């Protein structure tokens, strides 16, 4: 198979047909029940969350309860308008945090699906404290006493991605990208020319392969040729296998160790 360039992966990661958070949730979990609202302002539809069961009867692993959170993009214009293209407002991150704290209270592992062009840069978002909402999540997630697995399924861009990305394991689908901001934004800032996005993508180290080398992520989940949309069941199945196996591993260590190891994981980043 020909080598796929970083900018080709950006295109794959953003494809309308590419499976979104809900597609994976429906494949991997059973009885997903969506829970709404941040209890302060509203319900942000660009981020979904709820409770579900996870298990694998073929491997004799009985169902156990989990909390699931995902940034949800649409597959067409209408859906995207409703989902705000997966760009969250502060109440979205606060809903996610509320559900994560709830998971901690009841001892449920947390699985997050990251897929966003970034936090929404709107007036309301600023008025309601976009920066504070993201910061609060980073701080609180680092201390949750339950296993957290974060999966970048499409586009993981900027603080909006990281806001649900502080986990014990961070994994990426083979064609997903994870970056400080979009290649277009990067190009317009550093090259003063947004049309140089392709060049930016190649230099930014945003592919799963690059990020594995930088130790920013722990694992790459492979996709079929042409992308995840060509075989959702297969991708979901390997993801499910990985998630179950990892949660079982993480549940063996004490809460204190779990939190300390998560701290150490992020503590090392940028220290060489």
């Amino acid at each position, binding site marked *: 198979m020909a080598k796929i360039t970083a900018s080709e992966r950006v295109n794959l990661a953003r494809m309308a047909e590419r499976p979104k958070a809900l597609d994976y949730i429906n494949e991997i979990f059973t009885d997903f029940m969506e829970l709404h609202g941040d209890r302060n302002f509203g319900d942000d539809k660009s981020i979904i969350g709820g409770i579900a069961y996870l298990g694998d009867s073929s491997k004799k692993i009985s169902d156990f309860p989990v909390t699931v959170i995902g940034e949800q993009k649409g597959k067409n214009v209408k859906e995207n308008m409703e989902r705000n293209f997966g760009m969250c407002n502060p109440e979205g991150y606060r809903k996610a945090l509320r559900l994560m704290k709830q998971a901690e209270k009841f001892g449920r592992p947390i699985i997050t699906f990251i897929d966003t062009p970034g*936090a*929404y*840069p*709107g*007036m309301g*978002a*600023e*008025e*309601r*404290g*976009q*920066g*504070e909402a*993201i*910061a*609060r999540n*980073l*701080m*609180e997630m*680092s*201390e949750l006493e339950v296993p957290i697995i974060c999966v970048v399924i499409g586009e993981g861009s*900027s*603080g909006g991605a*990281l*806001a649900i*990305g*502080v986990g014990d394991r961070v994994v990426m689908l083979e064609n997903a990208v*994870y*970056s*400080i*901001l979009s290649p277009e934004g*990067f190009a317009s*800032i*550093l090259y003063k020319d947004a049309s140089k996005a392709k060049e930016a993508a190649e*230099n*930014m*180290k*945003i592919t799963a392969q690059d*990020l594995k080398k*930088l130790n*920013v992520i722990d694992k790459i989940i492979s996709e079929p040729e042409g992308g995840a949309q060509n075989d959702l069941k297969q991708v979901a199945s390997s993801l499910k296998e990985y998630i179950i196996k990892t949660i079982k591993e993480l549940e063996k260590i004490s809460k204190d160790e779990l939190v300390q190891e*998560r*701290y150490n994981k*992020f*503590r090392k*980043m*940028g*220290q*060489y």
Partner: protein
Amino acid sequence: MVIDKIKKVNKQEKQEKNEKASDMMIGKWIKCDNCKQILYKEEVHNNFSVCPNCGKHFRISSRRRIKQIADEGTFEEIGAEVETQDPLNFDGYLKKIETLREKTKINEAVKCGTCEINGEKAVLAVMDSNFMMGSMGSCVGERITLAIEKSIELKLPLVIFCVSGGARMQEGIISLMQMAKTSAALAKHNKAGLLYISILTDPTTGGVTASFASLGDVILSEPNALIGFAGPRVIEQTINQKLPEGFQRSEFLLEHGFIDKIVERKDMKETLYKIIKLHKKEVK
């Protein structure tokens, strides 16, 4: 004659001179960009680098800030050994850093250390907008984290002066991860029951706003500082309209409940001292 003059100034003076130059325009006079008044520079500096005419708070270097806040001779640096990294092998980045260091005599966008504030011991971190617009890459993240950890170790209050354009683009995803790293360290600091005062100065935006800047037990700000997550230009492009006057300024954030108090620079040290003193626990 010029050469003789240069030879005379010792290294220390040279450094101070360079930093002064990077603070504001070179020359004895400056023009306030707010009220357009022509001001005698020395007078401005003696007034905490605040315009004596209109009260505009000019941006100041970390060196000057430390001088304003820490008791004389008490500042001991933490993390000076941490170097700038180049995880993306980004074309020209390290060279740019080198040139900037030469020019400004500042070695990175934050300076941290232990100090005393009116006799009260504290850990102080001061960002510097003269260096890559105070952007946070691995060095800034690491130094801030070391400062937080030092403050936990010594059970001292933590004071961070924020000024930043956000995460440093040239270090890509590693800059983004500094947000998680510093916030996680603050979680530990918080759990230890220690005081953290965050001061937002002009401008505090992006990844710094979305991490340690917003996590203070007490959040102060200088007057009329630009504070936000997304920059005003990005928002205007997104919503396709001009932002109202004062949007994302300190007074706006106070109104919306995101900062505790706006403090003028001349009162900053005394205010910090008062807050630290109130939180002081008697050591048994």
